[in-house]
């Protein structure tokens, strides 16, 4: 067994410096020269760079000559940094023996610090605490150490003090990786067992699967089986990322690398699945596999009908690269033909939507996102899953909605506001603990549809940015909900219908119609906006008819200015969806996400 391999991840709360630390490790070990470093090398997708978050997992092999004089191969597995992708995070962690837990010296322990630390503990990882940004004047490492000891069952008395930005402590981190994190265990001669922790589709090479080999070995020419998918392939190439792609002869027990095997569909290489040998297969899969289930659904429609085929082709292409999102054709009276699409979470949804528009040049309308509800029969068995308001029936008696357990970190001073917010969102407080003198860790159970949209933004703004949040799905609970329809000039617009708690229906309906009044542009006729439950109208607003809209003059024959204005107006119109005679902008379909709490 190779003693000189170390497999580790970096986990942290968002913005605590995970990617910058990773960049420094690459630079320090010479994986990339300073010249080659673009900030946050591992985040290679444009979207990742823009949003400053990691969407996909990555792995990089670093060579490091330690102070003991020996050469080590360090496999750094970078993990996604958003709760939407927590399953992917857990599989990346399962591929490691240790994790660097990065904590911002000025911010201290946050909700995701704890959530990630516990994920690492569940996977039996050795945790190496690193306090980052110690060069900042507000840095308070003592406080961070105290918080760590109170919240996480690890030895935090001797953390590494570092500053990725200033290049402080990077050597210490590498030494700790070698000394504290155990080498991988495993049997090179046993049947192959390799865990897939990420995969993507490359137009030239087919699917590239990132794996951690636990037992056995894999090399080109070998026949392999994907145990979950139940499919066999022949390996074309194995290798590692340095971060440049580098083919190697074989990957043995303890190694981290990639496998290319002529696979055409990423759905065959699901994250969490086990790869074994066709000829000498392992008896069972590695533990922890589950299929990623979409949690949030919305309708995606082209604003112009003729883009339907292009949208379909684009979804097919993206699906090649992302097995975790789903889509099926759907039609809406208001919006025509489109697709009901399922996502891991709201960020995942935004990313897919943005990629569709950016990479495929589509203009899309996405309808109000919804969680999945369950209709239950008298015996308590699931009758149907409801992923769209149009499938909702107000006469259905027994309906359940998904709940999450949310952990909120908040300074004591803002407790009142956070209590109010959680109460307004139908939350039930389950736990309350002081972390240090002035911070509180709250645990709530909340309906998922109450927290998916603007909950975090609200929480942040009411606590001046000090609160942090992490949550996980915990199951379905009975619900008392109703569908509110929205009508424009007396025509129901199916895509604007919303499912809300009965007790809040009037209050929310009032707000939705007010919001829509502000968002629907004025037409040459009056537009009546109504909210109704069944045939009963519960709120109404009117967008008055446009009365004056004409350019006063085109001075001195300046026709270009008029032309540019027309183009701008035309572009604005293109982004709207014609519903009957009414032009509805994209924002209207998301109006329901921006409502005020009582």
């Amino acid at each position, binding site marked *: 067994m190779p003693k000189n391999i170390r497999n580790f991840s970096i986990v942290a709360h968002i913005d605590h410096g995970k990617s910058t630390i990773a960049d420094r490790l690459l630079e320090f070990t010479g994986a990339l020269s300073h010249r080659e470093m673009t900030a946050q090398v591992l985040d290679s997708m444009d979207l990742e760079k823009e949003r400053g978050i990691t969407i996909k997992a990555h792995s990089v092999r670093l060579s490091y000559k330690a102070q003991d004089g020996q050469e080590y191969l360090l496999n750094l597995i970078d993990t996604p940094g958003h709760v939407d992708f927590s399953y992917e995070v857990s599989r990346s962690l399962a591929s490691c023996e240790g994790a660097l837990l990065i904590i911002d010296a000025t911010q201290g322990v946050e909700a995701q610090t704890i959530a990630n630390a516990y994920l690492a503990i569940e996977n039996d990882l050795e945790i190496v605490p690193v306090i980052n940004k110690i060069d900042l004047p507000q840095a308070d490492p003592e406080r961070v150490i105290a918080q760590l000891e109170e919240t996480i069952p690890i030895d935090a008395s001797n953390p590494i003090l570092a500053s990725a930005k200033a290049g402080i402590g990077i050597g210490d981190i590498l030494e700790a990786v070698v000394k504290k994190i155990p080498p991988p265990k495993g049997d090179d001669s046993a049947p192959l067992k390799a865990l897939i922790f990420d995969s993507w589709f490359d137009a030239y090479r087919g699917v590239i699967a990132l794996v951690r080999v636990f037992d056995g070995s894999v090399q080109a020419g070998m026949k392999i089986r994907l145990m979950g998918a139940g499919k066999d392939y022949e390996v074309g190439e194995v290798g590692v990322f340095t971060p440049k792609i580098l083919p190697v002869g074989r990957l043995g027990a303890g190694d981290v690398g990639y496998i290319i095997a002529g696979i055409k569909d990423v759905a065959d290489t699901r994250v969490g699945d086990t790869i074994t040998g066709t000829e000498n297969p392992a008896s069972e899969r590695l533990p922890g596999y589950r299929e990623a289930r979409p949690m949030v659904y919305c309708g995606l429609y082209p604003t112009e009908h003729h883009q339907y085929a292009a949208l379909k082709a684009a979804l097919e292409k993206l699906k090649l690269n992302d097995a975790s999102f789903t889509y099926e054709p759907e039609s809406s009276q208001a919006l025509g033909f489109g697709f009901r699409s399922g996502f891991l979470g709201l960020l995942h949804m935004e990313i897919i939507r943005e990629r569709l528009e950016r990479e495929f040049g589509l203009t899309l309308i996405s309808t109000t996102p919804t969680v999945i509800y369950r209709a239950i029969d008298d015996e308590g068995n699931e009758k149907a899953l409801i992923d769209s308001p149009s499938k909702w029936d107000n006469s259905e008696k027994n309906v359940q909605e998904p709940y999450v357990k949310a952990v909120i970190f908040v300074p004591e001073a803002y407790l009142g506001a956070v209590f109010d917010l959680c109460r307004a969102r139908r939350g039930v407080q389950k736990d309350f603990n002081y972390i240090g003198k002035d911070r509180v860790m709250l645990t709530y159970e909340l309906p998922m549809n109450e927290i998916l949209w603007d909950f975090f933004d609200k929480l942040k703004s009411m606590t001046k940015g000090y609160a942090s949040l992490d949550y996980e799905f915990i199951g379905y609970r009975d619900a008392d909900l109703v569908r509110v329809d929205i009508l424009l000039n007396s025509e129901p617009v199916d895509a604007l219908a919303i499912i809300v708690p009965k007790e809040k229906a009037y209050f929310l309906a009032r707000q939705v119609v007010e919001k829509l009044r502000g968002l629907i542009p004025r037409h040459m006729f009056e537009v009546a906006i109504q909210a109704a439950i069944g045939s009963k109208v519960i709120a109404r607003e009117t967008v008055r008819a446009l009365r004056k809209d004409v*350019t006063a*003059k085109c001075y*001195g*024959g300046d026709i270009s200015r008029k032309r540019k204005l*027309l183009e701008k107006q*035309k572009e604005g*119109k293109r982004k709207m969806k014609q519903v009957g005679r009414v032009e509805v902008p994209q924002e209207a379909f998301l109006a329901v996400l921006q409502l005020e709490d009582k």
Partner: protein
Amino acid sequence: MDSVYVHIPFCLAKKCLYCDFVSMPYSPPVAQRYLGALSREIALLKEAGDFLAGPQDKLAVKSLFIGGGTPTVLETRQLEELLDLLGKNFVFQQGSGVGAGAGAEVTIEVNPATIDTEKSSTLLKGGVNRISIGVQSFSGPELKTLGRLHTSRDALDAVKTVKDAGFENISIDLIYGIPGQRVEDWRRTLETALALGVRHVSAYELTLEEHTPLSGLVEKGALRMPEEDEVVRLYFLAEEMLEAAGFVHYEVSNYALAGRESLHNLNYWRRGEYLGLGAAAHSFKRASQRFFSTEGAPRNGKRWKNADGIFRYMDLLEKDVLPAEEIFLLTPEEEKREFVFLGLRTREGISVSDGRDLFGPDMEKEAGLLVKEGLLEMSRGFIRASRAGFPVLDAIILRLLAGLGL
């Protein structure tokens, strides 16, 4: 070339608060240099042979418009020089000298505070036959809000001065929708205008242009623009009063007694050609006729704009470089769009048969939908905005163009 526009980018001490046109405070030496540059621009165009090739090396045009800025801020001597320059280079069908030919329209914009008897007679002698006075309002407070540097009295005097000098074809510009303007105020301004016996009135809605002091004041909340309903009321009041006095509402913002429509302005909407001289001046040349197109002649209609900066404009010409900077070649689609959005600004409208040539049966079909809604009218072979349609013309155009796939 149908028309010529000459831009004089000089004003009184300060710009009006709503103005975003290119201008600077009048400086006699700069203005002198500028006249030299204008002369050079004409000379270079002649050398290029593109536009200025006509009888006696003069370009025949149907209208000429001297705008600004404030052209009459020039000293009498400079006005003479300007008119002399134009007279030497342009001809109006027959005869010589600016405006000598019948039917030609030669307009100059006049600011009430900058006109006197001497300048008036200089203009008349120089061939100008139409005066457009920037009155804007007869209310003192409104003039102040607009940042105009003249009084209501100045405006009345200006009309009298040019009339006494012998001008008969007089137009005045008025603005409505001014912060603080009440219906009665606007009615009084219109009554005063009508009592002056002018032949043409331009009634423009005040438009907030970005980066003007006025838009800054509105953003800060120091001034409040009137509500849309209010503006519509003012618009219809002008239409009602002017039509009752015999004026024809011949374009969105323009009214004239029969035969006194501004040929120069109509030329813009009818997509006639025009040559703009001076800083920031705009020009338009139609696509050449396919059968007669010669090597290198443009296949597309072309719009261009001269250098924006006054000094840049002069510098270029002093180096013998033509100052055309923003050049835009129109695609066939853009030509079609222009046909629609420019034509519909006039009461005359767009010709059904031209529409048929450009769009096939679609034009009548799409326009028909808007006729049903009472926004367009179709008669005597033309499609035009209805009385109710004019104030929402931009929205109508957008719908019509969308219906035509443009």
